[in-house]
């Protein structure tokens, strides 16, 4: 598909490549926000949205979006105006840009770069910057505390994330996510399991657990939702935001959740490969399987959110620096040994 488009018209190709992930993110965000409310409702013995749009309140997110667009754009008097306005868009841009290297199906990847994983990790680091920017520019002490917490948290948890990603790369031997996915095709691990990386090496299972905990922290989900912990810091770095800018933060947060879940799906669960070998294969089914895997991980994140309390900031740091980071590096070494021996 990529070559086909480029051959017709390079400009159109760029626009279409930019539009496809954006459409996916927007549709996903609307569905996921509604879904999160429904899941929360289910877990909490209540109904969740039921009215807007008729069937189970399916139009609730759309109505909310329309409301947020119409809201007055409030900027605090002493805020640093440019940074305050810019931060939410930068945050969204960072998570959106990272989608360029995600192979959505065997026929579609935004950009076939050889250093896909590296690019993804680098671009998502900008998220930290925009959170600090928002926290500082609001000129609100709660926002500042939220921003600072977030900076510490995201920088710390990037280390175990990268270490576990490195573990996978070590096994896969490529930084290109498309290549990583392609090598997971087929159906012959232990004779019956799909050829996914998580089934190929016992240390990749532990790597996945570390990876999942780290992405919970990276995307600010419970039990690590400290930057925006509403009962302590009001709303953290988002305190002063309202209307469309706040919606951008939400969108970025949900996009980030999806991005990291999809990364998990590529690295551990075979990306767009069907779990049944060639059955239900092909580009369109590939897209279906890929999104299904990603959304399942998103669902687990939501499930955790509505079950657990949250950690304190020093406990969060303790978990990262004295548990996850040593474990992830030990895991890396053990994986390497396993690869050499078997």
């Amino acid at each position, binding site marked *: 598909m990529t070559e086909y488009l480029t051959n017709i018209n390079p400009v159109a190709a760029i626009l279409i490549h930019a539009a496809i992930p954006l459409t996916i993110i927007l549709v996903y965000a609307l569905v996921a926000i509604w879904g999160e409310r429904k899941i*929360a409702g289910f*877990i*909490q*013995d*209540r109904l969740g949205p039921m009215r807007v749009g008729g069937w189970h309140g399916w139009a609730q997110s759309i109505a909310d979006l329309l409301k947020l667009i119409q809201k007055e754009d409030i900027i*605090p008097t*002493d805020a640093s105006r440019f940074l305050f306005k810019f931060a939410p868009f930068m945050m969204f841009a960072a998570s959106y840009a990272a989608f360029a290297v995600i192979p959505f199906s065997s026929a579609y990847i935004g950009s076939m770069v050889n250093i896909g994983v590296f690019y993804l990790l680098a671009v998502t680091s900008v998220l930290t910057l925009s959170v600090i920017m928002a926290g500082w520019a609001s*000129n*609100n*002490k*709660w926002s500042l*505390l939220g921003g600072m*917490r977030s900076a510490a948290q995201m920088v710390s948890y990037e280390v175990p994330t990268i270490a576990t990603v490195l573990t996978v790369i070590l096994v896969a031997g490529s930084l290109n996510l498309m290549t990583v996915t392609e090598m997971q095709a087929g159906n012959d691990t232990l004779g019956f399991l799909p050829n996914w990386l998580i089934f190929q090496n016992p240390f990749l299972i532990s790597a996945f657990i570390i990876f999942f905990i780290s992405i919970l922290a990276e995307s600010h989900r*419970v*039990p690590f*939702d*400290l930057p925006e*912990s*509403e*009962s*302590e*810091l*009001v709303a953290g770095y988002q305190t002063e935001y309202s209307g469309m800018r706040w919606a951008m933060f939400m969108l970025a947060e949900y996009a980030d959740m999806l991005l990291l879940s999809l990364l998990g799906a590529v690295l551990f669960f075979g990306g767009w490969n069907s779990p049944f070998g060639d059955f239900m294969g092909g580009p369109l089914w590939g897209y279906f399987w890929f999104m299904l895997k990603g959304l399942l991980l998103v669902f687990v994140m939501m499930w955790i*959110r*509505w*079950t*657990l*309390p*949250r*950690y*304190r*900031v*020093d*406990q969060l740091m303790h978990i990262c620096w004295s548990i996850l980071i040593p474990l992830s590096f030990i895991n890396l070494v053990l994986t390497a040994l396993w690869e050499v021996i078997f």
Partner: protein
Amino acid sequence: MMEVISKDTGKREMVINMGPQHPSTHGVLRLELVLDGEVIKEAEPNIGYLHRCFEKYAELMDDYAKVIPYTDRMDYVSAINQEHGYVIALERMLELEVPERVEYIRVIMAELQRIASHLLGIGAFGLDLGAFTPFLYCFTEREKILDIFERATGARLLYNYFAVAGLMRDVHPEFKTETSDFVKTFRPKIKELNDLLSYNSIFIKRTANIGVLPEKVAFNYGASGPVLRGSGVKWDLRKNDPYSIYDRFDFEIPVGSGELGTLGDCWDRYIVRVREMEQSLRIIEQALDGMPDEGDVMAAIPKRIRPKEGEIYTRTETPRGELGYYIISDKSASAFRVKARAPSFVHLSMLPAISKGSLIADMVAIVGSIDIVLGEVDR
């Protein structure tokens, strides 16, 4: 705002206002925090945002009984218990005999209210620590209690149900079955709550060893109720200074033991409330068994309540601790002086002592664990 920050440069501390509009200050409490990073150097509670002149109002009313609805509004999550203390004070002043059936209904109502109040306290405490779901589970159960109250009293929050030497109206015919059904369904829910929240390892990490209130400090500040019992002191007015008919029931006083941390930490205060709910269920069951089916719910009382000249102090055990009413009568139809000793006020005053050196996140846990109601703090 900008100026405040620039003025403070050079110092490491930052002054921050937590509240009056902050999600976890349980109403309109304002805490002035001096922070070094996220560590609290000093904390000063500022109150008065919900002051409604209860004491002055009580003196100005031309009838003692007219104060009863206003006592509801002090601690609006345990209104029945507030009424209970006040009517007991009046009954003792007037030396009135209360009918048997009334006493039983009062005890059942008071214990149901205690459970409802603890459910709110526990749920909100979990919410403060980021656990959203237990909060709604607690509210579902609280709702069932409020339904019982609604059928019996006509109101869901502020009941105006207890009258001097009686009740405003008799309970509905299905009251007994409804209440015993609730008791049966509620027991397993406590276990569920324990599984979901009390023994959750993150929850324990957030509450054990936090906000330790040693026994001595608790005595010095005059703590009472679950806060005092959380520090391991076996003190419950229902046992130590029985009022109403509490001496007839068999129940235990749960106390904190520091089983998961230090004695008197947030977890101890929390678990005392959970265990107290079980004891309240026991009292309700016994009271339902002993409650006479027939009987008047209003004793013969003088048309105008005019107590003898004198003063009285009565204390009762509300879900938050010792609620005392000090009433001076000058033989007229209205009280010369009514003073309410509110446990929340006392507990709030010890906040600076137990929160020094903790983090902001711990402050939230501490405020949640002493379970204050600002309506009662300010009165």
